[in-house]
Each structure stands twice: as structure tokens, then as C-alpha cells.
């Protein structure tokens, strides 16, 4: 029995080392890309096969969701439909989660990800982003009686409501340490706090505050855009040049017909209103400063 235990311990140790080594090398480098076989399908291969596989959200209304007839809908999906149409192939939608979007591209299980995918430097190392088609930043909503139009409007005694762990909290803490923050853990708590007048304003992602002001009378988005702008773009597997170039040209070409403005009016206007169209939509891949 003692011998057995020793063998078992050695085996476990070896396995753990192998597992840890494999896990680390996986995240630090993209070794699979350098192997002889490419994981992705080129533009011609997609056209030949007759279907393009596009990863979208199935539960993020109004960007990607499934309606009561089981059809995919939303801002991302509207664009995906157009891409498939112009490629001359059928679109096959794959339901993705925020946590597995990169994995899907790296294994070539989808050709394109169109799932409200924010462009970040870390992600750029894992996948290739095309030109952006939407831009988001932070926003501040406040009661109509005392609209906060700029951060200077915030008096010394005032507090700004934020949700812990959001970009709004990080941004305000880093760039405006003098502003007092009232932190909440959940969206519902922050909402109640604003309604009870516990803070002078509420800072969050601008899409969130815009939607909030539209649904709740008596509140205005005084600052619709704060901090650095993040862009949302389609992504393809790293190195898939032909498809990436095609999407980039397509986005530029669609700019001529104001495609994303049309898309906004069809899919997002109900949630965000027409006032913020210019704020959120990026046409031809050109982000306004």
C-alpha cells in the first residue's frame, strides 16, 4: 500500500506539472498559429462552402438576441445578415458567451465574431479586429432639476453613484480622485439610490445611462460621453488576412449608404432614442474624436 501511494503521488505531481506548463504556454503565446495547418477558413473557402459561421450573442438585447419566433435579431445581427448577403452565402449563427468569444475564433469554430466585442490591447494579441462599427464611453445621468452637464458642476458635498467594478468607478477614481463616490454592488441598488436622491448623479456605461434616462421620466443624460472612447468591432481569427480585408472594405463601402445609421434606427433607436445616434454609431470605420 505504501508503494502504491508513492507511485500515485509521483504520477499526480508529474500530471500537475504538465497541466500547469500546458496551461501557461497556451495563454502566453499563440503557438497553435505557427503550426502548419491554419485554424481559420479563408475568404474563398467560406464562399465555396456556401455558409459563413458568425458568433453572436443570443441574450444581449438589443445587440444580439433571439426573438419569440426563434430568429436572431439586433444591431450585431443586422450587420451579420448584410455581411452574409454580400458574401453571397448563408449565415449560420452560433450562440456565444462573453467568456468564450476568443476561444471560438482561435479554434476556427466561427469565421467572424459579431458579439458587441470591445477592442482592447489584450484582445488584439489574440484575435484580429476589423474596423469599428460602434463606439461607447462613459455617461452621467442626473435628475432634471439639477442636471450635471460637466464634472465641474459637481459641488463639494455631492456624491456620484457608481456600481463597483465598472469602468466608471475605475475612471473616476483614477482621474478625479476629489469626487466623492457612492458605490453599490448591483444595478438595481444604484437605480434606487438615484431615485431617492442619494447622489447628485449616476455614472455608468453611456449605453446604460442613455437607456435609463429614456425609460425613466425626470432624468437627463447631462454628460453623454466621458473618458476614453472604446470601439466595438468585428473580429476574425488571428492572421485571417483575406477575410479581414474583405470586411474592412465592406465597412467602408457600407458607409456610402449610411448603413449603420439605418441599422441604428432599426435596432437601437427603441432603446437609446434618436438623439444619441451620432454618439454611438461609427460609420465607415471612422471614429469621431
Amino acid at each position, binding site marked *: 500500500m505504501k*508503494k*502504491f501511494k508513492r*507511485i*500515485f503521488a509521483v*504520477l*499526480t505531481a508529474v*500530471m500537475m506539472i504538465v497541466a500547469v506548463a500546458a496551461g501557461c504556454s497556451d495563454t502566453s503565446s499563440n503557438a*497553435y498559429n505557427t503550426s502548419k*495547418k491554419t*485554424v481559420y477558413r479563408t475568404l474563398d473557402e467560406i464562399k465555396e462552402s456556401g455558409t459563413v459561421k458568425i458568433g453572436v450573442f*443570443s*441574450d*444581449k*438585447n438589443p445587440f444580439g*438576441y*433571439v*426573438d*419569440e*419566433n*426563434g430568429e436572431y*435579431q439586433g444591431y450585431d445581427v443586422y450587420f451579420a445578415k448584410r455581411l452574409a448577403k454580400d458574401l453571397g452565402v448563408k449565415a449560420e449563427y*452560433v*450562440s*456565444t*458567451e462573453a*467568456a*468564450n468569444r476568443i*476561444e*471560438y475564433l*482561435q*479554434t*476556427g*469554430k466561427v469565421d467572424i465574431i459579431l458579439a458587441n466585442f470591445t477592442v482592447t490591447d489584450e484582445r488584439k494579441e489574440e484575435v484580429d479586429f476589423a474596423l469599428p462599427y460602434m463606439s461607447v464611453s462613459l455617461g452621467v445621468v442626473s435628475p432634471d432639476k439639477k442636471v450635471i452637464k460637466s464634472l465641474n458642476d459637481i459641488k463639494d458635498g455631492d456624491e456620484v453613484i457608481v456600481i463597483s467594478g465598472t469602468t466608471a468607478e475605475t475612471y473616476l477614481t483614477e482621474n478625479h480622485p476629489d469626487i466623492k463616490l457612492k458605490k453599490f454592488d448591483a444595478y438595481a441598488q444604484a437605480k434606487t439610490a438615484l431615485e431617492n436622491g442619494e447622489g447628485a448623479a449616476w455614472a455608468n456605461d453611456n449605453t446604460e445611462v442613455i437607456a435609463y434616462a429614456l*425609460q425613466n421620466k425626470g432624468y437627463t443624460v447631462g454628460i453623454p460621453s466621458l473618458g476614453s472612447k472604446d470601439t466595438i468591432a468585428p473580429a476574425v481569427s488571428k492572421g485571417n488576412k483575406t477575410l479581414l480585408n474583405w470586411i474592412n472594405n465592406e465597412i467602408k463601402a457600407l458607409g456610402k449608404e449610411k448603413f449603420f445609421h439605418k441599422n441604428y434606427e432599426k435596432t437601437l433607436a*427603441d*432603446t437609446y432614442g434618436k438623439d444619441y445616434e451620432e454618439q454611438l454609431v461609427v460609420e465607415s470605420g471612422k471614429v469621431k474624436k
Partner: protein
Amino acid sequence: MQALGIDVLLKGNNFIRLIDGLCTALRISLVSVIFSIVFGIVFGIVMTYKNTVIRVVSRVYLEIVRIMPQMVLLFIVFFGTTRMFGLNLDAELASIIVFTFWGTAEMGDLVRGAVSNIPKHQYESSYALGLNKAQTYFYIVIPQTLRRLIPLSINLVTRMIKTTSLVMMIGVVEALKVTQQIIEANRMTAPNAAFGLYLTVFILYFLACWPISLLASYLEKKWSA
């Protein structure tokens, strides 16, 4: 009805989609359960052998399954096989493989426990009657083991049905994912639908698992007589 958001279920194909999702979940779990029982019985009997190599190998397998979260196994089988070998498994097939891999180990451990609980005199009497080793297992040991296994394995089966909610992570749309889709699609018009919908899913899962419990207690009674 309105407050619970049950009316959302009646819109379009929503209810059919939910049932469809439940069928996917049940299909994955039941196929895996059948494989797990078959392989598990074999694996469990193998585990009772006193050979060191066999014991080490089965012990390692069992520990891997116990330690690894099912989610990690799903990612390894679905994405890992594509990375390592270029295999492109269907998501549902990948789920069945993971659930069978998991179920076989747990089932095997249950079988091992049940087999080693069979009193030694059962074997000895059987050999004394002239049965060989295979016959002893087939006519004496396995039938008695199965009876002891029923209550234990029901636990595993219902757990497997419930764990299918994880397969949404590799793109399989099952009951819980459909629920989230319906809730989100109606976020604006019916913000309180979540409660009613989750309640519905709860009832559906109960209806799916309860007959299994009933069958188990029926078999237990029948076989103990």
C-alpha cells in the same frame, strides 16, 4: 399572470422553444447516462481488481474527474480537441463525451463500492456450485450490485440532468439558455418576466426528474421483494 411574466411564454414560439431546449438537455443527459451505466459497471468491476497498474490508472482517472470542474472538461473536449488534433466535434457530441467521461467515473466508483460490499460467501457458494468466474459475476454479483446501486445512481442521474445547464458555454442552446434569451428579448416590455420564467423552468426540470425518482423507488420495492 402579467406580473409573473408568464404571458411572455405564450408569445410566438417561446414555449415550444423552451420545451425544445429541455429536450436537448434531456437528450444529452439521458444518452450520457446510458453510456455511463454501461461503462461504469465495467469500470467498477475492473477497479475491484487488485492489480497495481489497474488501480493506479483507475485512481488517476477518478481523481481527474473529481477535481476538474465539468466546465473545464467541456472546454477541453470542445475547443481543446480542435487545437490539438484539428478535430471539429459537434457541440452536443462534445457534451455527451464529457458527461459520459464524468458519469463513467462516478458510476464506476459506486459500482466498486457495491461490488466490494457483496459478502465473500456469495462468491464462495457460487464457485462451490460449479460456476466459473464470469458466470459468478453475471448471475450472482451483478444482479445484487444493480439492486444496491439504484438509489445511489438516481442521485447521479438527476445531477447530470441539472448540470446540462453548463453546455451553453460551448454553444448548445438548452432550457436555461432559452430562458435567458426570452428574458432578455423582453427586457423592455416585461422587465419582471425573469421570476415567472425561472419558476417555469423549475417546474419543467422537476417534471423531468421526478419520474426517474418514481421509477427508482418502484424498482427498489420490486427487487427487494
